[in-house]
């Protein structure tokens, strides 16, 4: 029987900087190339994949994938085959700073807006260790500064512009509020609200909690439960707007562990596509292609 070819589909990746978008793309590409994507096969790549190859090499050396620069135009365009069906998907890898600046300045980035207009589906990235947790003892753990944020020496607010001349012994004024101080879940909801304001049709959404190994990995609570526990505002928003934003929640560890701390022989000997893993909404382990497969099936 001849394969049914589906229309080309664009999937927009939404997420601020260091939320795992590029790593996910690289790991997905590695999984597809090396037959670690279940019954989803890569038929051909349609675009420049140099950045993905370099990313895979970095993961192979147990190094993180390089960040995407603001003017970057990388994308993964591939033809996939699954159960007698062919689908061409395009995933543009734009810098997370675009989303960050958009939220900080309350102004759409024109390129991002164009991508959303053309997108049939989206992936929203949150990084597990960027989400603050309030423990039973009332102490806040995790948050951006726990990992990729600046070390203490960098974290001081350097004065810029008129405030630069303030003398060192002056009593520090609390910084004025700005959108950049909003926690990640509020910013995610803010982003999705902006998307909904601009969109008349439903947008299937795969929510990817990246660095899932830092959330507890395979033994952790299922991603849907984790989201309700740790990011309740986003979870409630998604539930409220389930009609416009049909969604599924996945936990993804594109690196398969923390390269700074996980130095076990087993981890070092594995290939990147064997280290990476995904946990589905209910906590079962799956392939990295599952979010894409679900988006294709939901959007069609």
């Amino acid at each position, binding site marked *: 029987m001849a394969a049914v070819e589906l229309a080309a589909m664009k999937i927009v990746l939404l997420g*601020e*900087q*260091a939320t795992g978008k590029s790593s996910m793309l690289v790991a997905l590409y590695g999984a597809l190339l090396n037959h670690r994507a279940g019954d989803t096969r890569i038929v051909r790549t349609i675009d*420049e994949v*140099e950045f993905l190859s*370099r990313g895979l090499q*970095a993961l192979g050396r147990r*190094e*993180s*994938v*390089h*960040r*995407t*620069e*603001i*003017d*970057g*135009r*990388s994308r993964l365009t591939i033809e996939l085959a699954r159960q007698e069906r062919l689908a061409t998907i395009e995933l543009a890898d734009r*810098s*997370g*700073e675009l989303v*960050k*600046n958009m939220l*900080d*300045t309350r*102004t759409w*980035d024109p390129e991002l807006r164009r991508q959303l207009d053309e997108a049939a589906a989206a992936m929203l990235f949150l990084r597990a260790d960027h989400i603050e947790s309030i423990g039973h003892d009332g102490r806040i753990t995790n948050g*951006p500064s726990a*990992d*990729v*944020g*600046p*070390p203490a*020496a*960098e*974290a001081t607010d*350097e*004065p*810029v*512009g*008129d405030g*630069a*001349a303030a003398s060192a012994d002056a009593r520090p004024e609390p910084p004025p509020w700005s959108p*950049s101080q909003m926690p990640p879940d509020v910013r995610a909801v803010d982003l999705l609200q902006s998307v909904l304001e601009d969109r008349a049709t439903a947008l299937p959404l795969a929510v990817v909690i990246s660095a899932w190994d830092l959330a507890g990995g395979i033994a952790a609570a299922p991603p849907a439960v984790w989201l309700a526990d740790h990011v309740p505002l986003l979870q409630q928003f998604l539930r409220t707007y389930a009609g416009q934003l049909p969604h599924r929640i996945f936990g993804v560890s594109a690196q398969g562990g923390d390269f700074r701390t996980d130095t076990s022989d087993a981890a070092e000997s594995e290939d990147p596509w064997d280290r990476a893993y995904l946990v589905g909404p209910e906590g079962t382990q799956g392939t990295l292609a599952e979010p894409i497969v679900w988006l294709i099936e939901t959007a069609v």
Partner: protein
Amino acid sequence: VRDPVDQLLFGYRDGHELIAGSRELSPPQLREVLPHIDASIERAEEQQLVGTWVPSLDGYLLARIWPAPERRRRGAAWGHALVLRSEQLRSRTLTGLPGLLRRPENERFDSYLAPLEWPSPVDLGAAERPLSRALVWVALDREDRPGVVLWDDPRAGEGTLVALLDALPSPARAGLSFRTRQEARPGSYRVVLAATMGARPDAEDVVVIDARRSPLSTPPSWTNLLDQGARASRQRVFIDRFGARDAATCAQVLALAIIAELLDARALPDRVIDTLVEGFPGPDQVRELRAALLGAADRYGGLWRLGEEERLTLLLGRPEHFDVVTLSVAERLAALVQTNPHGVLGVVERVRARGRGNPRDLDE
């Protein structure tokens, strides 16, 4: 600080952002500046030099980007930018500016908070000839296309790019944007100098010159514009003198370079004037050059030795391109009638023979 130049330091903190600076940026300015001052650099030794006009700043950004391996995020970078005000870009010598660009050390940013003093001019040295010729060739492309020059060490061309910017007449400087980088991503800048072609060009029509190989065709001689010799020096002086007011595009700078070369080579006057009206069709453009070429022979003899009859023939052959009042054509024809009546008839006949000019004007 005399004639201060603003500076901005960008680096990776909560994303790639403005760390310190002598001025503030509005959100639209920040959005426009960030792509020019960010890079995800893989090679530890790579640096990038960027020059571009930023409309929202009403200024020209000259910046250098370095990798920041000391930051935890892989691909993090430092970017130090100078913001030249419009009048600074137009009127100042730019060669000392790259010396102001410096990478932060030891997390100390105090020195980035105040404007810097305009630097003294320096000799930027000369790049290897194939490289400098290729850069000039791409920068002055007749069709204003973006271009890529390939060279193993992109840093070797940095001085040439700044020298080229400095050699352009004031109005054209804002139109020359450039970036050096390891892998070219053409389209965003007028000139990209890179070691390899990276992604496919965004724009379809991109000029690519691999300066490491012998060119497929002989480069035009005006690509020697930045040579150290007397001829190139004369060309630069010519371009600066006659383009200072009206040469606003690289194509117009090219027209001036070609005119200078044609004059040097004593080419046919028709070719000189055709090049002039192609680059500057309006009668009000490059008035000084128009006068120097086709003004009265007894007043304007500096550029070429061309008689009054020939000058009037060239001028009346293209009346829509010249201001006949400013160039005193009627008075000059009247004077010619007095001194050489046959000469006037010769002018009319030659203009008619070339099929140019307005017949009624010629009859009058």
